[in-house]
């Protein structure tokens, strides 16, 4: 009898685990790839981040003003914010999510920020859901993929103003899944970053049709610096070990200045990329977009990366570089025209 009861309880316990796991994978939007479990909702105030330590308040107090953009991809919020706070002697950061961010990305508001950092997916895909589920709100002009996903387009204001902001010359930092923003609806945006991703739908990038891109969670990698003289990598040695999500996405090797490469290789890249596209192991680069310096790194999915000291130093260096007069001068001397002058 007791054995039977014990078995039933074990079934309940294991079932509970599955329910919890299933629920946590049903988070909205692109949530199926969220890094790390959300913190317990009963976290006491003291745990909620005292800022960067040494009396640095939440949001930092440093001289470089950074707008941090999120939305479109869930993430483990507090550890992410704590990483930003840890840079608080160098930066003052403000969290501005879509759609407010779309409004702020304009020369009209550019005095407020030196660097724009993106951990978002602008225009994220929305699945049609299961049969019988309420239909999602599909904005007009959304792009529909073959597997029935809808991708909202950027606002006309953003399409008009963002190129002007790039021409003004500001610093741009794009970690990790920011590479999936506007992939289907605004190809010029992918050219700004230097690559494009979508792990949930086939996509056409630079005229080439790819299957769903690849993502490989919790992958131990060594990130090798291939340009050790650049201000972002200088003094950081040969590279760093990190366990993080790796990608097989469509990177534009011919349009970027490589800084780092990963030793990760997907077993079969043709599952994620058109055979015409050679798998790129690029893990970080710099480039210009109009008159602005741009940094991208594939690394930075979740806590395991954010807690890696070398990663933190690497990205902090990137922010400092993007804000520097040297980077702004370099971009203006080496501009990359992406948008038609009419917008």
């Amino acid at each position: 009898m007791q054995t039977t009861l014990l078995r039933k309880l074990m079934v309940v316990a294991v079932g509970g685990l599955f329910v919890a796991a299933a629920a946590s994978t049903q988070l909205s939007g692109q949530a199926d790839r969220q890094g790390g479990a959300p913190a317990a909702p009963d976290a006491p105030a003291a745990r909620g981040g005292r800022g960067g330590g040494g009396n640095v308040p939440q949001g930092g107090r440093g001289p470089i003003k950074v707008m941090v953009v999120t939305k479109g991809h869930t993430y483990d919020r507090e550890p992410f914010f704590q990483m930003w706070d840890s840079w608080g002697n160098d930066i003052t950061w403000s969290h501005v999510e879509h759609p407010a961010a779309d409004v702020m990305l304009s020369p009209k508001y550019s005095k407020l920020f030196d660097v724009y950092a993106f951990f978002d997916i602008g225009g994220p895909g929305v699945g049609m859901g299961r049969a019988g589920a309420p239909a999602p709100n599909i904005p007009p002009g959304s792009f529909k993929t073959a597997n029935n996903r809808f991708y909202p387009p950027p606002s006309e204001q953003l399409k008009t103003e963002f190129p002007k902001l790039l021409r003004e010359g500001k610093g741009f930092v794009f970690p990790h899944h920011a590479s999936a923003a506007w992939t289907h609806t605004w190809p010029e945006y992918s050219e700004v970053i230097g690559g494009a991703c979508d792990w949930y739908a086939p996509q056409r990038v630079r005229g080439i049709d790819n299957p769903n891109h690849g993502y490989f969670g919790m992958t131990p990698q060594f990130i090798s610096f291939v340009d050790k003289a650049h201000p972002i990598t200088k003094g950081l040695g040969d590279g760093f070990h990190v366990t993080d999500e790796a990608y097989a996405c469509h990177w534009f090797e011919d349009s970027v200045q490589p800084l780092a490469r990963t030793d990760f290789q997907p077993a079969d890249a043709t599952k994620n990329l058109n055979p015409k596209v050679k798998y790129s192991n690029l893990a970080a680069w710099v480039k210009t977009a109009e008159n602005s310096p741009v940094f991208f790194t594939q690394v930075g999915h979740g806590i395991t990366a954010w807690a890696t000291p070398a990663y933190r130093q690497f990205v902090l260096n990137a922010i400092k570089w993007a804000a520097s007069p040297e980077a702004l001068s370099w971009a203006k001397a080496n501009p990359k025209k992406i948008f038609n002058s009419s917008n």
Partner: protein
Amino acid sequence: MKNISSKFIRLAVALAIVAGSASLLAQGQWGGGPIKVAIVTKGHNFDRDGFFNFWDSLGQDITWTHLQHPAALEFFDPAIADTFDVYVFFDAPGRTATPGSDGKPTFEQPNASAKKNLIPFLQKGKGLVFFHHSPAAWNHTWPEYGEMIGMACDWGNPVTFKGKTYPNSGAQANVKQHITVVNKAHPITQGLGDGFDIVDETYLCPVDEKAKGLIPLLRTDFEGVDKNFPGRYASGWRYPGVGSSLAGWVRSAEKSPLVYLQNGHDGVAWRNPAFQTLMRNSIKWAASQEARDWAAKNPSKVKRSSSN
């Protein structure tokens, strides 16, 4: 064997709770409801995970966007104000004094455009919900802002409110209170019955109870006298008289419906079902045509800033 069984029972219960929490979170970060809400913060540390989980829990009614200063005040520009239906303020900027060139303390100014844009913004009829420490925003550089809310606080500096200077404000954490509903007919208090119990931080700040058009909704049973703030009192801090017991009200600001709720310091309050009801009702009311019509019919003038 009995011990093993009871351990499994506890494990099963724990997993069920975890599953319940996950289910709550399954509404997703940022919610998916019809009311577009900007959540404005900066200038006061807070438990970010607990706070954002709270907003997610309202996700069937709202889609929320975190919007920090200095970007936030730009949305007072009527040209972009309609990005959101309701603006919720949990901010407290402008409190850090730095020595000016003459040695006197100077405080952070709001964005240059904000003072100019505020009144046209309010005349549009936007829903505004202020709670907890938000009456501490811009006291020293934009006193008309606190007058608009009906309250002004600063726990580290003296406060000048409606021309009168008060000592540093009082704050006492983890206070058991009973909040009494004093207006049971208002949409914001529906579902709260006669009131509710809550453990939360309470304040001693000047409140303009007689502000034009102010409608009291809630009162606390905490007595706002300086002796009830023992830490500060022991250090010699004194505050004149008895503070207001108002813990929630509505009023109009030009043609905009405005709510203030004194509760909401941390996760203890955010997890209180009554507070959740209160915030949900406040946002739904502030977003409603009914509230905008009410504010348009009962407008209250907001003073233009004297410093621009």
